[in-house]
């Protein structure tokens, strides 16, 4: 008997709980050589802004123990180019597409959401209010519960699509911003974006990144992410998509058991572009081994 991997995130029904995280899989098309992207739960494309953005000056990345820092600065081709050049191909392939987007102000968020509403081939939106790299908007909105509420409510009013809100972990209590997003109409929360970090080249005494501070990702942050997923699961009923340093199926299972309905693979795609195939197979094998009929039986199954 094959276990049932289907999960529902609000009105969004997915064949399985494995997604690729925004900013780590291009616009999805880049992953075609590594597997059938229609077999993924969903692909979350690179964060889009209304107009193309060149991103931050180099150096933009540095490797750290079991992790990496980045200050890419949300470089992207802009909404129009995505709709014209990328989305038609994703649609033809049958991929479930979640569009990650960000703005510099609330009006940008609203306009992006309104323009993506009802676009064929866009299955859901993921609102990025948590990028630590863009000086305007971004982290300022994501760290204040009141600002989160206002921004999410504005977007909620502009779209009927399932709305995911990706939260920053750079707060004292993640439950406060999580509750604000849920109350403002989010259908799900993506937890977590990168943790702020910094590295120094001691020989030159310069920061490793041109922007000095960047976002830490990779297995180094996984325990923080699992903890935040569990905390929010305890506090709220809203579906959670767990994200942060998943390297193997075992890691993905950790998030599901802690309370995530689905997971996103991010940094691992850089080293193992086909790892999601193994993670999917590993989740299925686990369910068989533990005689579970549905992956949903596992969600929040932590024996605490």
């Amino acid at each position, binding site marked *: 008997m094959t276990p049932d991997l289907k999960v529902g995130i609000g009105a969004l029904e997915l064949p399985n709980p494995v997604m690729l995280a925004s900013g780590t899989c291009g616009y999805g098309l880049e992953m075609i050589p590594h597997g059938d992207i229609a077999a993924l739960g969903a692909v979350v494309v690179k964060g889009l802004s209304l107009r193309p953005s060149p991103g931050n000056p180099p150096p933009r990345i540095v490797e750290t123990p079991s992790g990496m820092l980045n200050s890419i600065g949300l470089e992207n081709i802009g909404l129009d180019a995505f709709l014209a050049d990328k989305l038609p191909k994703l649609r033809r392939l049958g991929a479930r597409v979640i569009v990650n987007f960000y703005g510099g102000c609330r009006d940008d968020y609203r306009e992006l959401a309104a323009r993506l509403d009802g676009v064929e081939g866009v299955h859901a939106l993921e609102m990025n209010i948590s990028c630590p790299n863009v000086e305007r908007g971004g982290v300022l909105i994501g760290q204040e519960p009141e600002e989160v509420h206002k921004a999410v409510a504005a977007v909620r009013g502009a779209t009927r699509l399932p709305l995911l809100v990706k939260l920053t972990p750079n707060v004292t209590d993640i439950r406060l911003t999580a509750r604000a997003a849920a109350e403002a109409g989010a259908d799900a929360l993506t937890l977590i974006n990168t943790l702020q970090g910094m590295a120094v080249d001691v020989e030159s005494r310069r920061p490793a990144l041109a922007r000095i501070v960047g976002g830490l990702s990779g*297995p180094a942050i996984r325990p923080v992410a699992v903890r935040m997923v569990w905390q929010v699961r305890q506090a709220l009923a809203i579906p959670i998509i767990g994200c942060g340093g998943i390297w193997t199926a075992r890691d993905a299972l950790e998030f599901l058991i802690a309370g995530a309905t689905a997971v996103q693979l991010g940094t691992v795609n850089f080293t193992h572009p086909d790892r999601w195939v193994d993670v999917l197979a590993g989740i299925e094998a686990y369910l068989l081994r533990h005689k579970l009929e549905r992956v949903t039986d596992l969600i929040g199954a932590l024996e605490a």
Partner: protein
Amino acid sequence: MLLTIRAARRLTEDFHLLELDWPAGMAEPLPGQFVMVRTREGTDPLWRRPLGVHDVRHVKGAVVVSLLFQVVGPTTRDLSGLAPGAALDLLGPHGRGFKLDAAEHWLVSGGRGIAPLFYVARILNRTGAPCRAFLGGRTAGHILRERDLARLGCRVEVATDDGSRGRRGLVTDLLDRALARLSARRRAGVMLLGCGPHGMLKAVAAVAAAKGVAAQVSVDPLMACGRGLCLGCTVQSPGGYRLACQHGPVFNVHDLSWGAR
């Protein structure tokens, strides 16, 4: 993709060469392209490491790809311990390589910068096109493949920082003097192909500008993925940012901004 090591040898103290059986289903690398390798399970180091393709030979219908590297960290240390028959996890080839369409090509290398340039000499030898090589390095042990380049028909000149091999001084000074001896007409047919530390490449760009010759260089910023996913390996160009892994790693010198690090 797991590839099999066919041969492994130490060239000098720090420098090693690996030969790999290249699977029939994989695209054959072009000169200047690179591969991404990893040697360990687990997450330290987290990223694969980019290595320029050093040589491609056809041996009895099979494709043999060589990688030349200097031991600088955990991955290259692991690579230096691989024996024939061992497997290497490799992705690629990636990137855009050298355009070889000039009347004559001059290779300018600093230390391990010879890695992608040797393959160019191989191609030029096949087509019978003229080739010169200027090899620079800290010391004699950092001058690599000198005799093999000569065997491929390259005229080779060497400079080391300590004078232990060739002239004492900078490889770009050798280059500058050699260009100065050419007629303007012949200079117009020269294409410089450079690979080495940033400071050396900057000097190649300056010599190229001063002498009015064309030049391409291969750059080596930190890379997480090598395939345009992470957008991390950005370099500055006068027209905006470019990705070393996709628009490069080989660039025309005019397409890079040399003021920035």
